[in-house]
């Protein structure tokens, strides 16, 4: 079991499963949340190494959540990977995210990219 936590914020059941598998393969312990409000609450308790953040999630939009994460000192070391199908939206968040991935995102792509975000210990 790895001590690196990856939080997957993604409302689509299948994509969250695929992302989860990719991050597991990359060596992370994963947690999946499908709702913006729940994610907001959960982020007060945990400090993930990586967050994959979908822009279109229920209750709180991804970009608001991204701003909050960036404003939180506790999460200063957390790497955020924005996942979105909207290329324009992706471009808009590029300044705040560590990585922007435009859907479709493949298993191997996410696995290989996030593996690099893991601190070498």
């Amino acid at each position, binding site marked *: 079991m790895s001590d690196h936590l990856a939080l997957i914020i993604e409302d689509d059941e*299948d*994509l969250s499963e695929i992302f989860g598998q990719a991050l597991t393969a990359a060596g992370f312990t994963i947690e999946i949340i499908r709702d913006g409000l729940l994610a907001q609450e959960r982020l007060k308790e945990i400090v993930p190494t990586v967050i994959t953040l979908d822009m279109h999630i229920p209750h709180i939009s991804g970009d608001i959540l991204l701003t909050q994460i960036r404003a939180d000192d506790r999460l200063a070391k957390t790497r955020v990977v924005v996942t979105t199908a*909207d290329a324009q939206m992706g471009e808009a968040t590029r300044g705040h995210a560590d990585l922007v991935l435009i859907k*479709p995102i*493949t298993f*191997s792509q996410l696995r290989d990219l996030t593996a690099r975000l893991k601190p070498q210990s």
Partner: protein
Amino acid sequence: MIDRLISISTTDPDDARRKKLLNILLLGLGVITFILIVVMIFSILGQSAQEGAYLVVYGGIALLLGMAVIFFLNRILPGRIAATLFLTLITGIMIFSDSAHDVSNGRSLFIFTIPIIMASVLLTPASSFIFGIVSSAIISVLAISIKEEPNSPAIAGYFLVALIAWLSSRNLEQALLELRSINLNLDKVVEEKTKELATTLSRELILAGRNRAILDSIADGVIVFDEFNTAILANPALGKLADVPAQGIINRTITDFIQSDLLSPATRGTLLGMLENPQAAGSGIRIDWGNKTLSTSFAQVRDTEGKGIGTVAVFRDVTHEVELEKMKNTFIGIVSHELRTPLNAILGYAEILKEGVYGSVTEKQKNISERIMANSSRLLHIVSDLLDEVQIEAGKLKIQMVSCNPVDLLDNLRSVMDKITADKGLEFITEIDPSLPPVLMGDPQRLQQIMVNLSNNAVKFTDKGSIRVKLSRLDEQNWQIQTVDTGEGIPEEAKDYIFESFRQVKAAATRQHGGVGLGLSIVKQLVELMKGKITVDSKVGGGSIFTITLPLIMPLEIESITETEKE
């Protein structure tokens, strides 16, 4: 009143003239005779009358009566007869107007010249000679009757007077005839011209009416401005589109016309600009007029000599079309977006299976997973193309200018194309000309898309040989992306439409090679968004060369441009 008294209307203008002249003479002579009678009566009453005063009175009365009879005969008989009677009457009276000696040889000889001259104007010019003969006969007979010699010089004088009267009268008559013929011709010309004018006028009226009816029944709004930008023509459709009665538009200037609350200041500016320079403005410009969308075209009106005399503007209501376009774009956008998510899931699961995440797989199962991935990718490309096409059409696709490295661009291209080309047994060559700067400004994602689309297109139509992608500097201001293949080439007639959406050279190509025919269309639109241009050079059987020319912008330039903008 006098004119009514002396004028007699007849069909023969010569006769009318003769009758009128006779009436004038009768009237004049009548007045003189009347005065003479009155004077004589007063002299008789005043005992100062000379011998023969009674004779003058009776003669005068007889003359008056005679002239009255002739005056009436002149109205019913031909003028010539009345004139002959008149001349006979005065000649007869002259015989008794003095003593036989004075008439034939003395002081009254001259009075016979009067009927001679009158005859030349009242009758025919030659009749002066007849009265010359008659007068000569009268004075000769009178002279013989009182046993005197006929006065030969007087007779010669009469003939001389007759000759002069004949000559002048004949000239006068000829001049009159000429004048009349000129008049007649003139009348004819006037009549013809009047008829012509009436025909033309009625034809013009019919034509104008027809044109007006056509204009009135056109569904598009039409308005014509003169060279001072005042509306001189507008049809009812325009009134409907602009929400004002068509009559209220006429004689108003363009500024008045566009001063409606339904127009934004920007739209007003556009319209004024189009009026200023209709040719440069182009046609089918869309403007918002209240809640309507109108397609507008302006054109200059020129006379037959090519001189500009105004501007005609046509407005078409395209509200419905615009709504449909928006709906289509929204629909395709939603469908594409909704398709991408499940496709992403299929692609992801297939890959997880292949990678053995859910347990080990056989070679065959791995192979099948790869087939699922390849097909999902193809489908995803089509969906992405559709989405791009819609975004470009809707003007939503923006080009991001960031600094990018040509080496990275080609590396990324190779990562996508190496496997595809190798699978088909093709050689894939990429090269960078040393003239190209190591860093340049562009949208890496879109440049990548352009190169992938062109390369994919080349792979589709090349069965053996190679595909070469070359980046180079063209000149000071431009750089180029070239793809050269050894494929089947493009027929000449197809070069016109290969860049159109949903078009492929052969319909069969779609089935054979897949795709919906958007690849090149998107490339062209992206290139145009980047202010570049694309050309194709190809021969059937001789491969194709696609050349994209893009403006070369160095990272430094962008910074300085941004700096300038900030200032």
